[in-house]
């Protein structure tokens, strides 16, 4: 037994830090309704700030701590509250996007402010040890951390349980309007909750960085460990979240004892993600989302023009019905086709190395398209889409590379491997939606990253595997131009297929499952099949993108498909416009621009600009396209000649004639209005 104690102690030590993080995450979720994906980034930002104050500027802890906890953390908390205030009551999708945007923004800001190199943070407690019993030693830092964590956790619990702040919090969450009426200031409560939450993050940052290293990515990842305990507490129970974190810490630590023995190698790193995925599936329907969103995304209400009488409308619908889908050779399809035709000639104008970047942009656009269909159309949030790219790249890479198989066979197998994985990621969507689905997909991405892609026999280890350029029926696509044309054609075919599907029965099916799943199911839609098929198909197409990714790079490594690449994909798709095919293309283009050899001094601002753009456009399903459209309309209005002032105070557009008026106008009794 005694051999386990050191691992239990270490587990309690790290677990108690995760416990703080879990409580911080739960706190904002239960008080503000925001699940903070950026929590680790906030902890990281605070840890870097502390490093600057303490280690770099040489301030003593007695000065640096108060600055961090009483100045920096509150300011950040106030800023976050102000950011989220206008988003209250919006769909989980918007809140997730904003929170991932904040994560990216902080991740981009820290290297700009503090520089890129890794550093170590001095521990705040002495690292010397004392003997406990005869067999093992406990570090003062471990003991100190455990004591502080328990004390602070108990304090927060007591604060919420036994003070006026606690009752106000509950009131403000349960019924904001009513709370306002009885004198609870919702804004104050929410601001306090944010400040407390950031303080917890700061504590997590400075407690954990000395052992985990102070690094932009590491801390973000470590804090995701706390998501499983937070879910264990159903995102509302602080004590359960804390206890869950302690248990998780001990389990991971005990597993690390066997970490070096073969089959379970590296498994302990994935345990928190496996736990997250399993908890979400097991707890399923019992998980409720806070602040059930009453407000909706701005519904794009571009109805067809009301021209023509009922007879004309009827005739048009008949034509449309017979043709199968609205063969709207509208501006977007026309523009797309013209753009495609022009894009075919790009190799004539662009030098080789840049052509590779553009091909990457096209392939990225193909992957982005799967997220448009999945998230923008079907309303299923996925934070794991790049895992499928990885599956495709490695599967096809092995087959066409070391096994020397035909490229097309490799593509086919890669897509077939991706399909069941797509169904696996889709499984949580049968019982979960919104936030919990996003968390489940995030867990899946992390599991793939840590358990599958890290295996030497899958990915070839750190050096990766080499992939040959494709040969199809004697045609060789080894040249840059030919590979570009192939990728472009594949993208074009998929995009046109998506466009056609969007306007036909399948597009309608996706839309109704998104608008009202209950109504759809009572009409006869099998939600299970619909969702799983969408996840599977999107996974397959992403894997198709992966096969090109590998062929293009001529090598793939595990680093190409790290979990965070899926988050970046989501950000770029939101930026481009998550409900539009052109949005996927814009996402690809932005990705392509990022690959260009721009000086680092300029390039470092790029991710920040993207993150801020995403935060600003999170509520806009058509992203930058909507922005561009709005701006264009404004310019057109400004340029239009002034209308002559009419006598009656300007003419209103007679659009407001409401449905009731329309009924009154055209109503003979309804029962007799049928018949051809």
């Amino acid at each position, binding site marked *: 037994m005694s051999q386990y104690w050191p691992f239990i102690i270490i587990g309690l030590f790290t677990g108690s830090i995760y416990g703080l993080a879990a409580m911080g995450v739960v706190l904002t979720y239960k008080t503000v309704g925001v699940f903070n994906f950026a929590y680790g980034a906030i902890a990281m930002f605070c840890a870097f700030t502390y490093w600057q104050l303490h280690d770099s500027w040489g301030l003593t802890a007695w000065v640096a701590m108060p600055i961090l906890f009483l100045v920096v953390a509150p300011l950040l908390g106030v800023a976050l509250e102000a950011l989220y205030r206008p988003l209250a009551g919006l769909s989980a999708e918007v809140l997730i996007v904003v929170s991932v945007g904040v994560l990216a923004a902080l991740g981009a800001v820290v290297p700009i402010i503090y520089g890129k190199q890794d550093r170590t943070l001095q521990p705040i407690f002495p690292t010397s040890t004392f003997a406990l019993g005869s067999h093992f030693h406990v570090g003062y830092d471990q003991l100190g951390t455990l004591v502080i964590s328990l004390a602070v956790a108990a304090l927060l619990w007591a604060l919420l349980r036994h003070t006026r702040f606690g009752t106000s919090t509950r009131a403000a969450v349960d019924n904001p309007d009513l709370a306002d009426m009885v004198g609870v200031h919702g804004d104050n409560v929410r601001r306090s909750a944010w400040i407390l939450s950031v303080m917890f993050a700061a504590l997590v940052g400075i407690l954990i960085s000395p052992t985990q290293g102070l690094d932009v990515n590491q801390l973000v990842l470590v804090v995701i460990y706390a998501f499983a305990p937070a879910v264990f507490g159903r995102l509302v129970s602080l004590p359960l979240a804390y206890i869950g974190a302690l248990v998780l810490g001990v389990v991971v630590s005990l597993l690390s004892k066997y970490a070096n023995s073969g089959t379970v190698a590296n498994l302990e790193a994935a345990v928190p993600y496996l736990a997250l995925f399993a908890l979400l599936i097991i707890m399923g329907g019992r998980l409720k989302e806070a602040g059930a969103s009453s407000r*909706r995304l701005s*519904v*794009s*209400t571009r*109805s*067809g*023009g*009301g021209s023509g009488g*009922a007879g004309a*409308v*009827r005739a048009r*619908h*008949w034509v449309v*019905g*017979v043709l*199968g889908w609205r063969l709207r050779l509208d501006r977007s399809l026309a523009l797309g086709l013209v753009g495609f035709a022009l894009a075919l000639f790009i190799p004539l104008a662009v030098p080789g190395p840049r052509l590779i970047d553009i091909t990457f942009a096209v392939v990225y656009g193909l992957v982005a398209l799967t997220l448009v269909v999945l998230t923008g159309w079907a309303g299923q949030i996925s934070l794991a889409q790049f895992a499928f790219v990885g599956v495709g790249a490695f599967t096809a890479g092995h087959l066409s590379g070391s096994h020397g198989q035909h490229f097309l066979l490799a593509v086919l197998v890669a897509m077939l491997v991706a399909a069941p994985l797509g169904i696996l990621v889709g499984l949580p969507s049968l019982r979960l939606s919104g936030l919990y689905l996003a968390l489940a997909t995030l867990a899946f991405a992390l599991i793939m990253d840590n358990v599958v892609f890290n295996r030497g026999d899958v990915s070839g280890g750190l050096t990766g595997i080499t992939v040959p350029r494709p040969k199809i029926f004697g045609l060789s696509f080894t040249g840059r131009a030919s590979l570009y044309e192939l990728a472009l054609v594949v993208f074009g075919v998929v995009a046109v297929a998506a466009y056609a599907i969007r306007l*036909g*029965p*399948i597009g*309608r*099916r996706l*839309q*109704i499952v*998104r*608008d*009202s799943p*209950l*109504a*759809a*199911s*009572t*009409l*006869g*839609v*099998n*939600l299970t099949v619909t969702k799983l098929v969408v996840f599977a198909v999107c996974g397959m197409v992403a894997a198709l993108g992966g096969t090109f990714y590998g062929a293009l790079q001529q090598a793939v490594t595990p680093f190409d498909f790290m979990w965070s690449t899926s988050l970046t994909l989501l950000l770029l798709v939101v930026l481009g416009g998550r409900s539009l095919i052109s949005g996927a293309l814009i996402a690809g283009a932005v990705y392509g621009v990022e690959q260009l050899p721009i000086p680092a001094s300029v390039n470092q601002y790029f991710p920040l600009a993207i993150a801020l753009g995403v935060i600003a456009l999170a509520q806009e399903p058509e992203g930058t396209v909507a922005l561009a459209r709005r701006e264009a309309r404004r310019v057109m209005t400004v340029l239009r000649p002034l209308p002559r002032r009419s006598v009656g105070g300007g003419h209103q557009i007679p659009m407001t004639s*409401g*449905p*009731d008026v*329309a*009924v*009154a*106008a*055209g*109503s003979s*009794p*309804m*029962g007799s*209005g*049928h*018949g*051809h």
Partner: protein
Amino acid sequence: MATETGWEEPVLRATDITMRFGGLIALDDVSLEVPAGRIVGLIGPNGAGKTTMFNVLTGLQEPTRGRVDYLGDNISRWPPHRRGRAGIARTFQRLALFSRLSVHDNLVASWESSHPGAVLGRNRAKRIERVAEVMGLLDLWPVADRMAGELSTGKGRMVELGRALCTDPRVLLLDEPGSGLDANETAAFSAVLRAVVSDGGDRHPDVAPPAILMVEHDMALVMDVCSSLTVLDFGRVIARGTPSQVRADANVRAAYLGDASAV
């Protein structure tokens, strides 16, 4: 067959449905039958369990106990979509329109959802015909291209009814179809309901007109169209019978007076 009201098997029958939520008993041994070609009313004060009953009948909620039979099959374990495909259609008390589709596409999507293979483009001609028929029956052509999300409640209820009719239902469950309708709309609506159950207008000969079970607070509408009523209060059946019998029932008066005095 089903058009004959004297048919002994009801289209839909619920037997001893009990539904508990923790300590709360939402439905307590409730049974009811919906005969073919009839409009049956399910009434009762707010919170009596009417919508829960609909959820049980359509499979959205699984009852603690009890069984549901439909056209001779025990469908208690059927998922909602299977019941929908078999011909049980419903509308929702709180509108559940496909708000980002046009009115016409709401109906089209409904037809496609309820007919096998339609999502892959099968039977398009039938779809066009049926959707046009329902659009006409409910006078929806003037708003055909409007987004469903921007309609008034009254029109929205018509779209939900149209959506339900497009599934070619054998039984139609209407959850407070009259709320949010003005007097003219209500009058037109009861005419539509009668048309639906009597001959259904230019219906396909192979589709029998549906029976209707409706939850409704508008007593004038209920008394006007329903041939029999079941009254729920606190999850229990407190009365059954023809509208006039129910109107005279002492229990019903007590329940409704209690309800009215609270308002």
